[in-house]
């Protein structure tokens, strides 16, 4: 029944994936912890831990938010808003606006996560790991893997990334205020660099490059007149134009 046994391996399939079982795929996903994205996530989470300390919340809050949300922009929003004394309703609204971006990411990763085998529940639970970093890594690695290994590999990536971000938050909380300002700024700067370079690394088709340029150019412009929905509008407009432009050339 498994089509994949007879189907030829993907040309870009990593060597370990040939004849690998699911635990192996999971372990190779978990190893993301030691790769650039894992290290970058750990380092940027240090900044979040610092922020939680600054807001005089507890170490437990820092780790809890990292585990339960696992999306740095929303985590930062919660702490920042609570620190400013915003009402809970206002906090929830702001969080929801930052979380809308997870919708297109989740939709676009679905074809890779939904193997024919594997339980619905396991596929459903996997969406908790979808945030920019795991989305980028998933997009980059999953298409080349045999279908039966994809979910296990994605779980490995997810666990690794959650471990990186929660341990980073905890360490950042403890080290807070002992780091020089320049070092803090350099750590914070890793987030946009990593997002940009890894999106460039995943870009293949002309459509991807147009999306990168348009999305990047539109976001600050849209922010000026509609700060609440800037990313969503920049994504929809930039992505749609890129899609149409990519279509007309193929």
């Amino acid at each position, binding site marked *: 029944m498994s089509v994949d046994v007879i189907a030829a391996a993907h040309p870009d399939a990593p060597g370990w994936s040939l004849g690998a079982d699911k635990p192996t795929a999971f372990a190779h996903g978990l190893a993301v912890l030691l790769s*650039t994205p894992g290290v970058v996530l750990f380092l940027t989470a240090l900044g979040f831990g610092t922020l939680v300390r600054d807001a*005089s919340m507890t170490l*437990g*809050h820092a780790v809890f*938010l990292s585990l339960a*949300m696992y999306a740095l922009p929303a985590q*930062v929003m*919660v702490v920042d808003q*609570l*620190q400013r004394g915003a009402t*809970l309703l206002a*906090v*929830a609204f702001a*969080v*929801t606006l930052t*979380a*809308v*971006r997870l*919708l*297109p*990411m*989740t*939709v*676009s990763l*679905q*074809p890779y996560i939904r193997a024919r085998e594997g339980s619905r529940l396991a*596929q*459903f639970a996997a*969406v908790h790991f979808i945030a*920019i970093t795991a*989305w980028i890594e998933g997009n980059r690695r999953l*298409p080349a893997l045999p279908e039966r290994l994809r979910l296990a590999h994605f779980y490995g990536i997810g666990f690794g990334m959650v471990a990186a971000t929660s341990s980073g938050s905890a360490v950042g909380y403890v080290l807070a205020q002992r780091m020089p300002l*320049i070092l803090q*700024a350099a750590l*914070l*700067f*890793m987030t946009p*660099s*990593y*997002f*940009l*370079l890894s*999106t460039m690394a995943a870009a293949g088709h002309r459509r*991807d490059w147009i*999306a990168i340029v*348009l*999305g*990047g150019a539109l*976001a*600050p412009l849209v922010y000026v007149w509609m700060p609440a929905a800037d*990313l969503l509008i*920049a994504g*929809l*407009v*930039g*992505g*749609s134009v*890129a*899609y149409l432009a*990519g279509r007309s050339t193929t």
Partner: protein
Amino acid sequence: MNAALQDGYGGYLVLSAIVLLAHEPWRWLGFALGRNIKADGEVFLWVRAVATALVSGMVTKLVLLPAGTLASVPLAVRGAALVGGIAIYTATRRSLAFGVGGGSAILALIEWLRAGVW
């Protein structure tokens, strides 16, 4: 600290409510909507382009309009570090580690020199 968080367990209850009501539903909705999307279909290509543009938008926002500590670094320095990072990434045959590390090293170096001069 916000009053809502002062009571130990109550604080976690508040945070859990925010997570479950305001944050996770977008992932669940994506799961439900993604059910019928194929990896080589047109809808998928469009959604992927939207997600890519959105991530790129987040990059320019973080660099042009950062909050917190990064805002204390002048815009020109942030721009130079981003361009430098891209250059290093390209020169090192697309190494993410060197690109990301190099960009931050440029930022720290310029800031350190500036702090020394003034």
